[in-house]
């Protein structure tokens, strides 16, 4: 294995929230690598831990009640989870840029767009003010904002939702980040505006070559944008695969259920396949598979032990006992009997 060093290597990240109703196990031992220039999709439902994972990486979760209980996130020879706050501030908004779902709550309503971009530059790459203004203008042009000179003097409320999200992207890109983390950036937008932003991000990634972590619940957005997908459920990664492979050959019963439940051109008049039951209660400590109560293939071991994320091929990882011990459960379509499937 002579893979290049990943841009980011997360190992065993565990985040909990100590609330009045008990401890919420939001993220349970998440590990993944992000290669330079890779677009990584993180898919999951609300409460699956996808946002908390990414917020934990930059230590943006409020502590208390939050607590990063374990784990390591190696970025450029430093551990994001243990480095000093001053070093971390260099990284936040500098080498790792962030975009959030609702641009209206992320932008300062009483500061002009231009000043907000300059603010980011002042913190990370201070130069002469005129140079920073010029860079701000360049950034607004880059993200496709019409008449950028005028928009520099606009306040966020004077812009539409799509334009605000473009401004957010401009701020996130101001310091040429190595990684851009986008948390549901198009969920609040209309579908035609979402299409504009998706095209913009693809274009920017081709131009600038940064790695992107794209958090979403929309399997359609993922299909068109990302290289690799992490599927999260109950605070854990249950499947990690290249996007084509995930859609063509989903291995985890949750992924299979999700993809099967989508309506299609031919599903009219038929029942949609659905995943029975309700999302898990995150207050239970993760000692069994969190999908077990809803899983159509559940068996004894699922209730007793929590499956680890293990490789089923060179590029595909699954956390499911079905893939671990195919002999015990027979074939049932879960394995295809390829020799290289279970390599432990």
């Amino acid at each position, binding site marked *: 294995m002579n893979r290049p060093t990943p841009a980011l290597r997360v190992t065993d990240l565990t985040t909990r929230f100590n609330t009045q109703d008990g401890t919420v196990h939001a993220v349970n031992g998440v590990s993944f690598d992000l290669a330079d220039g890779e677009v990584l999709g993180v898919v999951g439902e609300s409460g699956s831990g996808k946002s908390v994972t990414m917020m934990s990486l930059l230590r943006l979760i409020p502590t208390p009640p939050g607590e990063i209980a374990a784990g390591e996130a190696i970025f450029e020879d430093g551990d994001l989870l243990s480095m000093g706050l001053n070093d971390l501030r260099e990284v936040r908004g500098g080498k790792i840029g962030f975009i959030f779902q609702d641009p209206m709550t992320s932008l300062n309503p009483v500061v002009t767009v231009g000043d907000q971009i300059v603010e980011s530059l002042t913190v990370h790459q201070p130069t002469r003010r005129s140079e920073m203004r010029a860079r701000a203008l360049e950034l607004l042009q880059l993200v496709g904002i019409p008449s950028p000179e005028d928009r520099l003097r606009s306040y966020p409320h004077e812009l539409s939702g799509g334009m605000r999200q473009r401004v957010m992207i401009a701020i996130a890109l101001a310091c040429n980040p190595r990684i851009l983390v986008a948390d549901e950036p198009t969920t609040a937008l209309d*579908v035609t505006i979402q299409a504009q932003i998706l*095209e913009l991000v693809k274009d920017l990634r081709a131009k600038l070559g940064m790695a992107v972590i794209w958090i979403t619940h929309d399997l359609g957005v993922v299909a068109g944008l990302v290289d690799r997908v992490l599927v999260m459920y109950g605070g854990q990664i249950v499947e990690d695969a290249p996007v084509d492979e995930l859609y063509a050959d989903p291995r985890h019963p949750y992924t299979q259920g999700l993809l099967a439940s989508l309506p299609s051109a031919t599903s009219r008049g038929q029942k949609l396949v659905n995943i029975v039951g309700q999302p898990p209660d995150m207050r239970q400590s993760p000692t069994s598979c969190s999908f077990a109560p809803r899983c159509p293939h559940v068996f004894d071991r699922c209730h007793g032990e929590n499956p680890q994320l293990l490789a089923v091929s060179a590029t595909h990882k699954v956390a499911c006992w079905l893939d671990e011990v195919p002999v015990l459960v027979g074939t049932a379509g879960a394995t295809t009997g390829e020799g290289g499937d279970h390599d432990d």
Partner: protein
Amino acid sequence: MTTEAPAVGSEAPEVLVSVRGLKKHFPVTKGALRRKVGSVRAVDGVSFDIERGHTLGLVGESGSGKSTIGRTLLRLEKPTDGTVVFDGGDLAGLSSAALRKVRPRMQMVFQDPHACLNPRMTVSSIIGEPLVEHLSMSSRERNERVEELLGLVGLNPEHANRYPHEFSGGQRQRIGIARAIALNPDLIVCDEPIAALDVSIQAQVVNLMEELQDLLGLTYLFISHDLGMVRHIADRVAVMYLGRIMELADVDDLYEHPLHPYTRALQSSAPVPDPATEATREKIVLEGDIPSPSSPPPGCVFSTRCPEAVDRCRSEVPVWREVAPGHGVACHLVD
């Protein structure tokens, strides 16, 4: 159900709701005297029919007026102009007493199951409230009906005395549906009923709505921005933009042969959950934003973003034309 065969050759299906030239303008006021300075044309001249037992899907982006149509249909808003004929009677002219008699037959399911259920009421009193309002039932009859309704929507009747916060989002939406069907309505306006739900729960709720439609003969107006789900559930689909219907057709016709440039762009913008399709399909990315409904552009409202617009589109409002049986479109460029 037994009556599955479409009425081919026999009489045309019965029209339950008939909307003609519906307009709803909201005044924009200014200053201490609340002087009227303009109006938001939320719905601006819309006509359609919904047949009994069928589902009309209403799609469009935010601000296109889809929710206002739903609310005006139920007379939650008084229309500025136009008629809404419900089962033969015009709702626009009804007095509030007469309206109250019709109300039980038209219900609504809302988007946010957290906001539309009173947190201080038990599930049994939420679902029982319409029964108290409109029927004279003994409390025993009412409790039996509530249990029956809970069973119908797939909830445990033993949970009748719990409060909404004890349920998940999908279960709360089931409670909202139980309340909507409590009085055996003919029409249910579903305003983005699955938009706030997780993907794995959406299919559950849509299946339930389809089951109830078959079982109770319900007619739905299904308002959604999810084109995939509308294709699954609707019989006919209306595409709205800035207060007007751009195109209206049977579901397969609309998705297979979209005629209006906006319909095509909208379909093209919706991501397809299949990497192979996404990599190859041609995308129409519209430029710009939806104009404000308080100052819609002259001519065709879509002309400012239409990739195919010609001069005529910017000056002349396209008239609604039926280009094929059951397929209407408002566009100068469609022959």
